[in-house]
């Protein structure tokens, strides 16, 4: 952008026409609203709440778009320079970008003059050395995953008249280009020409942020509210057959193993003679219980246990004598 551009007064993109007086940034001079609760620290949230109240008051006009996304900055060092990075990946493909603005806080006073004036005895030092206008270079780079260097996407020079205040700059072309090329990690370096020391001692509420105004073409689709607000699904979605009841989960059922030892063909007890017509179920159970042995002593039980394990290991399969087999075959 050519030097000498307009001072960075707040940009009024289609959806950001705030009711604030021109030149005042939406979040300035206002205490964080209670509606934001714990996230009231950052100015992006305060700004978004102002936009929400405006949309509620005036409704969104046709050119305004139906979506505003805010992106908070994450301080990073890029090629040893302090930069602010923004993760734009949450933008949806159906969101057509109308405008984007970069909001940053111009520190009250540059540090080097602080140090300089401390030494000098002249009380009006601060006034004499107050540079009338601060020139800032906003250098935007898009970062590929896990790389330490970026691709410069834009370099905007701004002239700051008011210190200790928020400023906004239109970066629509940069964000549109980033989205088009799929480079959705965007970093901004605020270069004031001072030698790079670290990040200015900004409080977290003074971190820069980006607002993206968009028109979500999918918002009029049926159930568009579920796409962005339904974060869990009380029923597993049946992608396949719509007739499936919500409980019929589409994942393959665990097939239970129905192992039937080949030798047991029915529930009859081998030693019981079912042929004679005197057979009475009650008797059978009586006999079965009567035949229980009296409780063996501990020693015997242990020995018995050993015998059982021996017999068990020996004959895993039940053997019937010839007579029983003959009867079974006959039956």
């Amino acid at each position, binding site marked *: 952008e050519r030097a000498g551009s307009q001072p960075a007064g707040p940009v009024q993109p289609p959806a950001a026409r705030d009711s604030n007086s021109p030149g005042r940034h939406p979040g300035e001079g206002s205490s964080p609203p209670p509606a*934001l609760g714990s996230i009231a620290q950052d100015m992006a949230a305060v700004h978004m709440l102002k936009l929400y109240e405006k949309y509620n008051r005036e409704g969104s006009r046709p050119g305004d778009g139906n979506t505003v996304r*805010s992106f908070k900055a994450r301080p990073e060092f890029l090629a040893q320079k302090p930069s602010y990075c923004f993760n734009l990946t949450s933008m949806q493909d159906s969101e057509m970008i109308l405008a984007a603005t970069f909001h940053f806080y111009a520190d009250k006073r540059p540090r080097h003059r602080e140090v300089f004036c401390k030494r000098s005895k002249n009380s009006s030092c601060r006034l004499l050395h107050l540079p009338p206008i601060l020139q800032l270079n906003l250098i935007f780079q898009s970062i590929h995953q896990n790389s330490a260097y970026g691709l410069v996407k834009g370099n905007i020079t701004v002239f700051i008249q008011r210190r200790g205040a928020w400023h906004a700059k239109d970066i629509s072309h940069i964000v549109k280009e980033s989205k088009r090329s799929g480079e959705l990690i965007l970093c901004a370096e605020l270069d004031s020409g001072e030698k790079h020391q670290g990040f200015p001692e900004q409080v977290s509420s003074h971190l820069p942020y980006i607002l993206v105004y968009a028109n*979500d073409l999918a918002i*009029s689709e049926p159930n*568009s509210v579920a796409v*962005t*607000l339904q974060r869990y699904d009380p029923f597993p979605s049946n992608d396949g057959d719509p007739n499936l009841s919500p409980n019929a989960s589409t994942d393959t059922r665990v097939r239970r193993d129905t192992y039937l030892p080949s030798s047991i063909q029915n529930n009859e007890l081998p030693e019981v003679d079912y042929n004679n017509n005197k057979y009475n179920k009650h008797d059978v159970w009586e006999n079965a219980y009567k035949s229980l042995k009296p409780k063996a002593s501990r020693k015997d039980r242990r020995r018995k246990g050993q015998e059982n394990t021996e017999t068990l290991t020996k004959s895993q399969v039940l053997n019937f004598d010839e007579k029983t087999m003959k009867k079974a075959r006959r039956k």
Partner: protein
Amino acid sequence: QWNEPRICSRRYMKVDFADIGWNEWIISPKSFDAYYCAGACEFPMPKIVRPSNHATIQSIVKAVGIIPGIPEPCCVPDKMSSLSVLFLDENKNVVLKVYPSMSVETCACR
């Protein structure tokens, strides 16, 4: 709800996002008046239920019993209004979206 009119009309329904488990990420509003439609679309249908031509024909067919099993028309939302919702996306960034058709203004027989 019991002394509601029988005829197809708009009924009050307030939705609290905490009741549907969305309040963790929705900053504002906490609740809103959504309303719903219920009531009969019997022949003859008065103008107030703003029947479509098809609904009028269907209710006559139903009343005359020409074809067994034809139900009366349904009482559904006609005019609806949008709702601005401020919420946190998965990256905890604040998002504002204006969702259409979130609240019922009028009902009609269709």
